[in-house]
């Protein structure tokens, strides 16, 4: 009897130990996988990029492609290095246009969205016009701005603004409108006034959507600034691209494209960083998951 009891107790404890062991192993495996995924998220695309560049470099050398058609990556790197002073100077001009265009988009877009959301007659009057105005190819308006505002900073900023402000408006309106009726009821039952309800519930509720709009807007602002410089430039990376094109300096053309791409990535990352500061972590995660699903 006692023997049986002992042995059963033994198997029970062994069994229990096994369970703990499995859980620990599982945890370890999950931990390893998470680390591997984190590394892979960087290593894979960088590896791919390097591989493509190597193939490009080899192809350019092997087939002796003329550099005005397709310069080798090494030639582009050399061009970036040789023209770094110019790239930085023109890059700063473009940066200024992007920032001003984006800030103007937010400064006009968010209040406009608020007015549209809060004031129904205004929304009825302006919303259809606003939406259908997006059918106008904004690039085609650029020469008009040149006529009106000359060759300075202003027309570029305005073109960047014109292209970039729409996503801010739409996403802000959508975010504000997405508030559930029950949350409004809840606020009323708490005796929360309209202003407090807006700042405590409605605005934070809309923030993920607003940030999605800001991210689209900043990439559009880059496009807008370059288009402005194409049309009536006296400086900036877009203007540099035109000059390089005229001189058949394809390496410099690529250098300009690399600089513009970097600018775009930096600005996008800045908005992403701001989003992470403002929103709780899971909301950012969910937003990025939604983007991936799209």
């Amino acid at each position, binding site marked *: 009897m006692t023997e049986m009891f002992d042995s059963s107790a033994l198997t029970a404890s062994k069994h229990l130990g096994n369970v703990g062991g499995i859980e620990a192993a599982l945890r370890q495996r999950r931990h390893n996988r998470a680390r591997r995924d984190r590394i892979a998220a960087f290593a894979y695309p960088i590896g791919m990029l390097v591989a493509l560049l190597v193939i490009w470099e080899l192809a350019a050398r092997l087939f002796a492609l003329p550099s005005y058609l397709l310069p080798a990556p090494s030639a582009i790197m050399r061009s970036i290095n040789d023209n770094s002073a110019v790239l930085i100077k023109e890059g700063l001009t473009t940066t200024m246009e992007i920032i001003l265009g984006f800030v103007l988009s937010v400064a006009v877009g968010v209040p406009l969205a608020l007015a549209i959301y809060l004031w129904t007659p205004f929304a009825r009057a302006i919303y259809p016009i606003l939406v259908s105005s997006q059918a106008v190819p904004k690039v085609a308006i650029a020469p008009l701005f040149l006529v009106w505002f000359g060759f300075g900073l202003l027309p570029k900023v305005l073109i960047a603004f014109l292209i970039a402000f729409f996503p801010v408006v739409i996403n802000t309106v959508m975010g504000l409108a997405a508030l*559930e009726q029950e949350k409004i009821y809840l606020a009323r039952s*708490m005796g929360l006034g309209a202003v407090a309800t807006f700042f405590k519930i409605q605005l934070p509720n809309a923030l993920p959507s607003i940030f999605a709009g800001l991210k689209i807007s900043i990439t559009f602002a880059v496009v807008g600034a370059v288009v402005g410089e194409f049309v009536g430039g006296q400086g900036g990376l877009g203007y540099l691209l035109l000059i390089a094109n005229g001189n058949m300096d394809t390496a410099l053309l690529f250098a300009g494209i690399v600089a513009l791409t970097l600018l775009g990535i930096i600005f996008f990352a800045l908005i992403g960083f701001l989003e992470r500061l403002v929103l*709780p972590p*899971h909301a950012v995660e969910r937003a990025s998951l939604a983007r991936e699903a799209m």
Partner: protein
Amino acid sequence: MYRRSRAERPLSVNKSADHDQAYLRIENLSKVYATHDGEVRALNDVSFAQRRGEFISHVGPSGCGKSTLLMIAAGLLAPSSGAVLVNGHKVDRPRTDIGIVFQNPVLLDWRTALGNVMLQAEARKMNHKEAQVRAGKLLESVGLGGFEGRFPHELSGGMRQRVSICRALIHNPDHLLMDEPFGALDALTRDQLVLDLEALVRERRMTVLFITHSIAEAVFLSDRVIVMTPRPGGIDRIIDIELPRPRTLAMRDTPEFAEYSRQILELFLARGVLREHRADPRPGVRQ
């Protein structure tokens, strides 16, 4: 903190009147909605009164206007005709002397469990430290001790609804209004929350207006069950539940409990809310 909100209501000072007079009085309430397919009468001439400290459930089929009734009682919707009186005063704006719980938890994603409960305290400008202690105790009393810092997406459906109940209780409201609060939960979680609610309400002697589909839930929790007719929603019958408190799970198996359930069920059968399909024991041989 909540003392002030009580003083704001003039008649509640008169304690002796409270005994004779009903706390909540619903008088000839009707609600008609305008829809694309014409007007829909959601509530038809509903009248009843609730005493202080009484737990009243409304049970009825979907679309019988139960939720509409609750929203009107909360002052969040205006009735088409009739009136809601609280302590003899007509309600004509959203009431702030209530705690309200919806079918969905309606939590703010960017606030923690504690932060969501504290929203109520912040809105009412309660003393922050005292409210925080109260919120912590409330969360603990519904089994959420240690979860104060979790965000809603880290909690299960039942836990989220518990947070929402705590949010409705932190200011010690005079009246708790609940609109099918356990409708979206699984059966076991539901049982637990019903038990938790019964204890909370009993300890605080709360006045509760509770909307539900569930006959068992209504009988288990209530002092009175108001059975609603199908659309347009009216009062079919009011049933006094004379089971002792605290209510226990074992009570659900007593003949008394079964009798109350049967009464309500018969009303539903009589109104065609429920239909039985009787199997003929001898097919072909009809009397």
